[in-house]
């Protein structure tokens, strides 16, 4: 196999990038930082909360990838062509949904989640005082976005299990996806720690929300079509 042209690492890295483009985790972390700064918490407490949030999001991302890969290895690997078809259409459908309604049509960066859930998350974020609560919040934000995250995650999982079993490759793919997927959260933690204002971060998110929306939606559609053409169509003989 030519590592440069045939490696599924490109697919996994791209799927990780699409995972990173989703904004619920970033929004919740921004809100948590804003509340911590507004309550005049010490710098060490602010960083502890942010790092605990990042740890929670990382743990759940890793566990989701690992557990779904394990399940897929025993259930889906025998019917891989059908799985590729399902996953490619899933990505195309979710990509269309992201373009259609990921952000609410009003000022700000309000997301698709029901308002009652958004208010609940805001209240929980406001009352977060301990690292354990921040960890749970980070974990919860990843789980709340699973309806959209399942798209890039499923492609990355199939790309991993479709390869010959090699522990180093599987572990490397797994870490690559999670590292790329969590880059925005790491960037926010670094920016807040470096002294940037929440308003700067929020301004950037608001001004670029359409760009992010169309990039992630378009990216999912492109990935779905690529998988359909690369993995499914060659197996169809007319």
């Amino acid at each position, binding site marked *: 196999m030519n590592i440069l042209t045939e490696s599924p690492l490109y697919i996994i890295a791209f799927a990780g990038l699409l995972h990173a483009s989703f904004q619920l985790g970033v929004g919740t972390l921004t809100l948590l930082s804003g509340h911590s*700064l*507004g309550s*005049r918490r010490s710098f060490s407490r602010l960083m502890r909360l942010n790092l605990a949030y990042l740890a929670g999001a990382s743990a759940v991302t890793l566990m989701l990838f690992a557990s779904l890969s394990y399940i897929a290895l025993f259930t889906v690997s025998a019917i891989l062509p059908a799985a590729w078809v399902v996953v490619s259409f899933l990505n195309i459908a979710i990509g269309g949904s992201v373009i259609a309604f990921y952000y609410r049509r009003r*000022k700000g*960066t309000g*997301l698709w989640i029901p308002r009652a859930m*958004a208010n609940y998350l*805001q209240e929980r974020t406001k009352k977060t005082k301990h690292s354990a609560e921040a960890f749970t919040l980070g974990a919860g934000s990843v789980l709340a976005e699973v309806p959209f995250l399942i798209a890039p995650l499923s492609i990355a999982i199939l790309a991993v299990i479709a390869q010959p079993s090699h522990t180093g490759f599987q572990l490397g793919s797994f870490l690559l996806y999670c590292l790329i997927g969590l880059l925005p959260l790491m960037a926010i933690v670094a920016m807040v720690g470096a002294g940037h*204002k*929440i308003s700067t971060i929020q301004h950037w998110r608001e001004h670029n929300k359409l760009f992010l929306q169309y990039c992630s939606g378009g990216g999912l559609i492109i990935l779905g079509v690529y998988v359909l053409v690369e993995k499914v169509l060659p197996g169809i003989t007319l």
Partner: protein
Amino acid sequence: MNVYVAKADSTAHSQEFDPLKLHHSVLSACYAVRAFEGEAHLTARHVCERVIRWVNTKTEITSADIRRVTTSFLRQYHPEAAYTYESYKEII
């Protein structure tokens, strides 16, 4: 003053307007954008004075009215804090 605030959540009862609560929320918005302590207190005091003068001309207001009026006054003293105060509900 006995001005009542109708909350955005329509199931909640109206509450009497509390200037201290407003002062704390403006202060938090200023601290969230890393304003200095003296600057934050001064800004919060000026904004609260102007909001209280506006509130005294009403008998009943909504929490959305308070947010809108406070944002417009806060924008004159600290635009970044005003943006944070206004966009708090629209971050997620």
